[in-house]
């Protein structure tokens, strides 16, 4: 495996699970800055768990435990005096099912993260507009920012959630199967968006769709039963896998 040139997120000997169950076993990898890294693998192999360990969301689950090291720009995210809340402000997350806040307007949804820190009105509006533009949603919602977020289509809701995450200007954006609940057209828009966003930040995208991984990512990690089987440049991983299990998976022998 060739190492990424500019690593920003480092994962070392990471294991995690729930109670006496291990969902992730001794995973180590370095994630490249301003690139899209895809995490693939069959359902239940630990993709979400890995992602949620990166922004310390995993520990919110009942009985959850984590061992090992995660670093962001050299900072140990699980260090003794590191606040998980601060970690989550630096590493944003978008979920599989769009989860806009139902009682808030489109504007207030995007500003939800800003409101936690209290921004002045003018700057708040500017940031909302910028985030909506980055999420390629501005043109569709500019004239109805005060409407409920629930009035949007599923694809728009997901881009709203992306805008919401972008508004707090994170360094890394985690996406857990961000398009799996969307129709093909909405999926294409989200993929396009992922492409544009990598100039701005580092993206880590979980997907169970191998074509999608091939389209959007520069590097791909293949997880199987909680272990990292192979991690390489996406093209190499798909065309010339080094591991037998990777080959079987990418050629569709199981999944």
């Amino acid at each position, binding site marked *: 495996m060739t190492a990424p040139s500019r690593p920003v997120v480092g994962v070392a000997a990471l294991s995690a699970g729930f109670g006496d169950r291990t969902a992730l076993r001794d995973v180590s990898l370095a994630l490249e800055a301003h690139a899209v890294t895809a995490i693939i693998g069959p359902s239940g192999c630990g993709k979400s768990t890995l992602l949620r360990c990166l*922004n310390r*969301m995993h520990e*919110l689950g*009942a009985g959850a435990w984590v061992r090992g090291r995660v670093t962001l720009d050299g900072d140990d995210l699980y260090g003794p005096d590191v606040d998980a*809340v*601060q970690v*989550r*402000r630096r590493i*944003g*997350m978008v*979920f599989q*099912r769009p*989860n*806009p*806040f*139902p*009682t*808030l307007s489109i504007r207030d949804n995007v500003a*939800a*993260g800003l*409101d*936690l820190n209290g921004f002045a009105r003018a700057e708040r509006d500017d940031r909302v507009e910028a985030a909506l533009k980055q999420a390629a949603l501005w043109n569709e919602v500019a004239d109805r920012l005060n409407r409920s977020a629930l009035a949007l289509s599923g694809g728009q809701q997901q881009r709203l*959630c992306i805008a*919401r*995450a972008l508004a*707090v200007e994170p360094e890394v954006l985690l996406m857990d199967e961000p398009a799996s609940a969307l129709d093909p057209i909405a999926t294409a828009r989200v993929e396009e968006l992922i492409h544009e966003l990598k100039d701005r930040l580092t993206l880590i995208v979980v997907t169970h769709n191998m074509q999608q991984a091939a389209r959007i990512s520069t590097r791909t990690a293949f997880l199987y039963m909680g272990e990292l089987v192979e991690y390489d440049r996406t093209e190499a991983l798909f065309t010339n896998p080094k591991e037998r299990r990777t080959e079987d998976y990418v050629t569709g022998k199981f999944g």
Partner: protein
Amino acid sequence: MGTSLPARRRLARRRLERTGDTLYRDALAAFGMSVAAALGIVAAESAKLAAPALRRFGIAFVGSTQWDPTADRFGALPFLAGTVLTSAEALALALPVGLGAAIFLSEMAPARLRAMVRFPIEMLAAIPSVIVGLWGLFVLAPIMRTRVEPLLARTGLPILSGTPVGVGLLAAGVVLAVMVLPTLTSLSLDVVGAVDRAQREGLYALGATRWEVIRRGVLPAAKSGLFGATVLALGRALGETMAVAMVVGNSPDMPHSLLATGGTLASVIANEFTEAVSDLHEAALAELGLVLLALTLLLSIGGRLLLRRSVR
């Protein structure tokens, strides 16, 4: 010409099912209607019983502060005020405690504790009100008289002035709070627990603290359900009879302070009906019943309207 035997059988069964559906729907409609009818009958019977008082006092009955059965003077205001004051006090006490407990159990306590206390809380709701009344009379009232009321009287607020006697509106409000608390807590726990996990995670992922998740995610999403739980609790408090009658002090005077003795619509009906001194007295008590009925109807209708507006 033939539809085959199985086809005909299928048809027959389909028809039977359709008849079943219709029957079921009609039965449901009948049940629904019978509830409304029962309410109507109760109201009509009460009105018939109250007719002499209705004729004599009319609507002025509601605004009159006099209640003197021996002088044939009857007015509902002291009891209306007693009902509203004790219920409001009960909510003011029970709401923060019940909501706080529900939020603590749902958002902070480990799942095991939540499962452990859930059943006991629901059991508390099943304590007969006469038992709570006994507790109010023999345990609560002495404490109120010797400790709580002297302290409150020192605030100098008019609503808390008077001689500490233990029994009275204040004690009745506490008893009501105790009675609605279990239901309020367990309903709130249901409502808060039903808030989608994805909502909480959305906020956590933005860097919200646990408190921010509760305030900005859980509470707004649970708002209408919590409101419904509150209306239910208030409805129970308005109509509660036995426990209140035991601790409220049962005086017909217009209450000027929570420390005073008084009565509620429900408690005075229970206390005086079997010993009514005249037909007019009996009619006036029935009219109090009508006022209580109107109050609870108003509450549930008003609550529903407010709810509809808040949900949009």
